[in-house]
C-alpha cells in the first residue's frame, strides 16, 4: 500500500551506460515529478508531468528523458551516464492546486552511483 514507489532503490553503473528508474503512485494524483538531490542535500526539480503532459523541464541535459505512460507512472531514462549524474533521484506526486493545498508525496529515492 506504498503511496509512491520507485525502483530500483540502489543503482551502481559505469560511465557511458544507459539506465532507467521507474516510479508509480497509487494516490490518484494528476501530477508527478522527478527531483535530483546532490551530495549537499540540495533538492532540485528536473521534470514534472500533469496528466501525462510535460509541464516542467528545468534545463536538464537531453540525456535525461522522462516518460509518462499514464498519470500513475513516471519513468526516467538516462543515456550515456556521467560521473556528475551520481545523486539520489526522487519521484513525487501531487494533486493540482486544491483548496487544501498542493503538498507533494515523495518516493523513497533511488541512489545512483556512476563509476
Amino acid at each position: 500500500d506504498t503511496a509512491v514507489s520507485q525502483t530500483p532503490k540502489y543503482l551502481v553503473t559505469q560511465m557511458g551506460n544507459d539506465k532507467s528508474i521507474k516510479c508509480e503512485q497509487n494516490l490518484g494524483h494528476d501530477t508527478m515529478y522527478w527531483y535530483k538531490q546532490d551530495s549537499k542535500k540540495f533538492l532540485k526539480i528536473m521534470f514534472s508531468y500533469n496528466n501525462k503532459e510535460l509541464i516542467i523541464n528545468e534545463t536538464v541535459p537531453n540525456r535525461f528523458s522522462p516518460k509518462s505512460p499514464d498519470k500513475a507512472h513516471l519513468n526516467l531514462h538516462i543515456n550515456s551516464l556521467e560521473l556528475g549524474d551520481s545523486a539520489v533521484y526522487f519521484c513525487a506526486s501531487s494533486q493540482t492546486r486544491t483548496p487544501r493545498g498542493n503538498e507533494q508525496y515523495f518516493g523513497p529515492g533511488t541512489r545512483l552511483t556512476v563509476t
Partner: protein
Amino acid sequence: SQQGEEDPQALSIQEGENATMNCSYKTSINNLQWYRQNSGRGLVHLILIRSNEREKHSGRLRVTLDTSKKSSSLLITASRAADTASYFCATDLLQGAQKLVFGQGTRLTINP
C-alpha cells in the same frame, strides 16, 4: 540563486528543548511548505501555510509566515530524539507552472 534559503544549516540541541529553523525566499508565493527528511529516506510533508496566513499549528509544530519580510519559521517544541532529521522549506511560486522550490535544508540533531 535559490528561491529559499534556510538558517541555520545545522542545529544541535538537547532533547526537550525547542528548535527553531528559519527560511527566507525571494519572490511572491501561493504557499510555503515544510518537509522532513530522515537519513536515507524520502521527504515527508509536515505543514503548509498559505500566503494569507500568518501562523499555523500542527501538534508540536508551529509555523509562521511573514510575507512582508519573505520569511518563515518552523518551531518544534519539546523536541524528541525522533525529530532528528533534515528540514526543508519549499515555496509554491505565484507565477509560472506549479512547482515547489526547496531550500537547502537545516540538519537538526536532537541529543538524548
